[in-house]
C-alpha cells in the first residue's frame, strides 16, 4: 500500500507516493536522489543517515517515509545557503576533519543540531552529542576541533 506524503526537503515542497515499508533514508536517496545522506548500517547505530526532521536530528533509516508527511526535512545538501557554506562545513575543511567523507554528512547534520541547541558546547558535550556518529578514519580529534572552531566563529559573528 502506498502513501502520499507532502513534505518539505531543504525548503522545497514535494508530493511523493511512498510504500509503507520504505524508510525516509530510502525515499531521500532513491526518489529525490539526494544521495548526500548515506546508508551505513540501517540499524540506527552509525549516524551516517542523520537528517534534521522538524529541526531535530534523527537517523533517517529508522523513520518510515510515510511518517514524514507534513514534516520539514533538512539534509546535508540543505546545510549550505546558496553558495555560502555553513560555518561547520568551512570548519571541517579548515580543520582537516574529513577523510573518506562517508560519515561527514551525518556528523555535520548532527553538529548543526548541536550548535542550534547549544551555541557554545564544551568538549564533553560535543563528544557526547556525536556519540551516535561513527567515524573510522579520523579518530574524531579533528571533528571535535572543527565543531569548536565553528562555535567560535558563530560567537564572533554574533558579536
Amino acid at each position: 500500500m502506498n502513501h502520499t506524503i507532502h513534505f518539505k526537503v531543504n525548503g522545497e515542497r514535494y508530493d511523493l507516493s511512498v510504500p509503507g515499508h520504505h524508510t525516509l533514508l530510502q525515499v531521500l536517496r532513491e526518489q529525490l536522489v539526494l544521495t548526500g545522506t548515506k546508508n551505513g548500517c540501517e540499524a540506527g547505530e552509525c549516524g551516517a543517515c542523520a537528517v534534521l526532521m522538524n529541526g531535530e536530528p534523527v537517523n533517517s533509516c529508522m523513520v518510515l517515509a510515510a511518517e514524514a508527511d507534513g514534516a520539514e526535512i533538512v539534509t546535508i545538501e540543505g546545510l549550505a545557503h546558496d553558495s555560502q557554506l555553513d560555518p561547520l562545513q568551512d570548519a571541517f575543511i579548515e580543520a582537516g576533519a574529513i577523510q573518506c567523507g562517508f560519515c561527514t554528512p551525518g556528523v555535520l547534520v548532527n553538529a548543526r543540531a548541536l550548535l542550534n541547541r547549544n551555541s557554545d558546547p564544551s568538549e564533553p558535550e560535543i563528544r557526547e552529542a556525536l556519540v551516535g556518529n561513527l567515524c573510522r578514519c579520523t579518530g574524531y580529534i579533528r571533528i571535535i576541533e572543527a565543531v569548536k572552531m565553528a562555535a567560535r566563529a558563530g560567537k564572533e559573528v554574533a558579536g
Partner: protein
Amino acid sequence: MSQESGVRSQESEIRNPKSEIRNPKSEIRNPKSAKHSIIGASPHRIEGRAKVTGAATYVDDLQFGPNLLCGALKRSPIPHGIIKSIDVSRARALPGVRVVVTGQDFPGFTGLYLKDRRIFALDRVRFVGEPVAAVAADSPEIAAQALELIDVDYEPLPGVFDPEFGASPEAPLVHPDLGQYECVPFIFPQPGTNISNWFKVRKGDMAQGWAEADLVYEHRYRVPHVQHVPLETHVCVAQQDVNGKITLWSSSQSPFAQRNLIAQALHINHSKLRVITPYVGGGFGSKAGVSMEGAAVGLAMHAKGRPVKLRMTREEEFYTTFVRQGLVAHVKMGMTQDGRITAMENRFYWDGGASTEYGVNITRAAGYSGTGPYFVPNIHVDSYCVYTNHPIGGPMRGFGMAEMHFGIEQHIDQMAHQLGLDPVQVRLKNCLKEGDETLTGMIMHPTGLSECIRKAAEAICWDEPQTLPSGPHKTRGKGLACMWKAPAMPPNPGSSATIRLSEDGAATVSIGGVDLGQGALTVMAQLAAEGLGIKIEDVRVNTVDTDYSPYEWQTVASRLTWSMGNAVLMAADDARTKILRTVADAWGEDIDDLDIIEGQVVSYKTEEAIPLRDMVIYGLQRPDGTWTGGPVVGEGRFMPEYVTPLDPETGQGPRAVVHFTTGAQAVEVEVDTETGELQVLKIASAFDVGHAINPEMVKAQMEGGAVQGMSTALLEQLILDQGIPRNPNFTDYRIATAVDAPLATENIIVEVPQDDGPFGARGVGEHPMVPTAPAIANAVYHAVGMRLDSMPITSQKVWEGLAKHTS
C-alpha cells in the same frame, strides 16, 4: 637522494630533526600562512568541499535508471560442508527474478597470491556466509524472497576453528587440493596440510644465542579476528553491454587488480572489463583485491544488458568480505642483564580463514618482519598461514604488523621489567639503526626509529612521576611500543601517471590510485603543482577509470605517496620539460634559463613571461611564423628495481623489501580498578615519514590510526562460535565513538629522508595503527602490574585479571 632521471630532489628539504613537539591545539594551521613551497605545506583536501556538501559521489549514489537490478547472495549457514545439491528452480520462477547463478556457472579459481577461491562455492562450503548462489531481481524485496526459494542441501563436515589445531596433523583438511593451486613463486604452500604458506627465517646460532642470555622468556599471545568497519560497506554495480564489454563500478582500493583478477577468473580479456571507482568511503584493506565483486560481474553476464547492483549490508560486511586474520603467536626471547636481545624464536600461527589467497602474503610479511624493529643476531621465525573455517582473512591496515607487534612489544616490555630495566632504554639499545642487518640480512637504511622512540616517550613525560589519578579506585600507567613495516608487495608493483595541460593552464593528473580518505588526491596535486611550477588550485586529479587511467598496482601498503608520487613527479617533470623546450625553441633561449613559476613560463635572462594557458595546447609561434610545440602531456612511472628473492629455507636475501617505515606510540591510561574500565588519557605518536608532503594529513593519519588501534585493542572481536559469527552488527561489535577517543593526542613527525621517495617521502597510512594495542597493554601493566596477552583488552578482562592478581 635518487638521481633517477625526471625525479627532482630537494636536498634543502631535509629538516633539522630537533624537537618537533607541538601543542596539539595549535596544530590546525591556516594554510594562507604556508611557506612558498607547496611541499611541506598543508593545503586543504582538494575534494573537501565536495565531501562536506554531500556532492561527493560514492558507488551507491550513482544513478542507473529504472532498469537497475538488485543483486543478493545466498550464503552458507554452516562453516564446513559438502554441497549435495542446489535447487534454484523456485527462485527462477519468481516473477521479477531475472538471473540466478551458482558455482556451476563460474567454476574458475581466483586469488592474488594463491588461487584458492571461487566466486561461488562449487562443491564445498568453507565458512559461514560463503556465497553458493546469487540472484538479480527487479527489487530488493523480490531478491530477498528469491533467496528464500533457493534450496541447498549440505552435508556438514568437521570444522577447523583454531590455527594451531589447524596446523596439526589431527585437523581435517579445509583445502585438500592445496597442492594443485597456482601460486606466486614467493609463497610456499604445504600440500596435504592446512598450511598455505610457511615462511621461515633461520639466522645465526640459536644455541649460542640462548647461552648468552641472562633471561630467556617464552609466552603466547592471541589476537582474534577483527573487521575493518569501513563506514561505506562493499558495493558495486556491474553491467555488460551488447558487445560483451563489462563495466564495473566498484568501491575498491584496487581497480586494476579487480580488473586483472576478475578477467582471469572469468576468462575474459582485460580490455573487455572496465573498472570505475569514484569516491570510496573507507577501506583499510578490506577493499583491496577482490571479494564480492566477482559475483556482481557474474550476475551481469547473465542479465541481458541490465546493470546489477550488489551492496553488502552492514551485517554481511562484518564477516563475508574480508576480516583481519587472527593470530596465535609464540614468542621466545633471550636478553642479557643489560638489556641486549641475544636471540628470538617466534612461531606465528595465522588464522587465515577459509581462503588465504591474500593472507599468505600477510604471513610472509610477518615472517620477514618477525623480530619487530630490532637487531637480533640469532633468529628462528616460523610464520604459518593456516586454513580454518572462519571468515576470509585479508589485508587490514598494518598487514600483519598490528597482530604481530601485540606480542613482541609486550614481550620486550615484560623482559625489561623482569630485569629491572627501563623498557624505553631497552628499545633504544636494540632498535635497528642505519647499517644494522635485519633478520633477513637486509641492511637497514637510514631511519628515525630511535628518534621516534625518544620523542614519543618524551611526549608522554615518560621519565616524570606519574600524574595523580582522577578519583578513588583509579590508577594510571604509561606504556610505549614501537614498530616497523615495509610495504608488502610483490617485487614488481608499478605506478604510472599522466599529466595533461589544458587551455586554461590547468593540469589534470591521471592516476590509478584511489583516495580512500588518506588524502592521495591532494598529495598528488601538491606534487604535480610543485613539479610543474603551477598553483595547486590549478591542479585537478582524476578518480580511477581503468579505460582512461594509467596503471596502479593497488592502493595498499602505504605506497601511494612514495610510489605513485614518484610517477606523478616524473610526469610533472616530463610535462615541464616539454613546455620549456617549446618556449626555448620559440624564444631562441637556453632551456636552463627558463622556469615555470605559478603558472607562468619565465626567462631569467630576458625577464619575458608567458602564461601556460597561452601555449600548452596551441604551442608557440617562432619568429619566422612557424609553430612549435602542441598539446602537452607528461608521463611518468615508477617501479622498484631492487627487491630480491629470499631463500625459502632461511628467509635470507640482500633486499627483502623496498624500505621500512618506523615509529612509536606512547600511551597514558587510567584504570578503574573496580570495574576494569580503561580511559585512554593520551596517545603520543611519532613516525618517520621521510618527508611530510602534507604535514596535517600525516598527523591526521596518526590520529586516525591511533584511535582505530585503540578501538581494536579495547573493544573489538568478531565472536565466532564454531565458525558462526555472533556479533555481526554495531550493537555487539562496538567501535570507538567520539566519547572513547583519547582525551589528548600528540603527533610528532620525524623526517629521515627516503632515498627514492618524492622529496624524501615514505608512507605512513597504516603504521599508526600498529603499536597502539601493545602500548596500551604495556600501560595497563605499568598501572596494575598485570599482563594482558589477548585482545581485546575489555573491562571484563581487566577485572578478571585483577581478581586473579589480588587473590
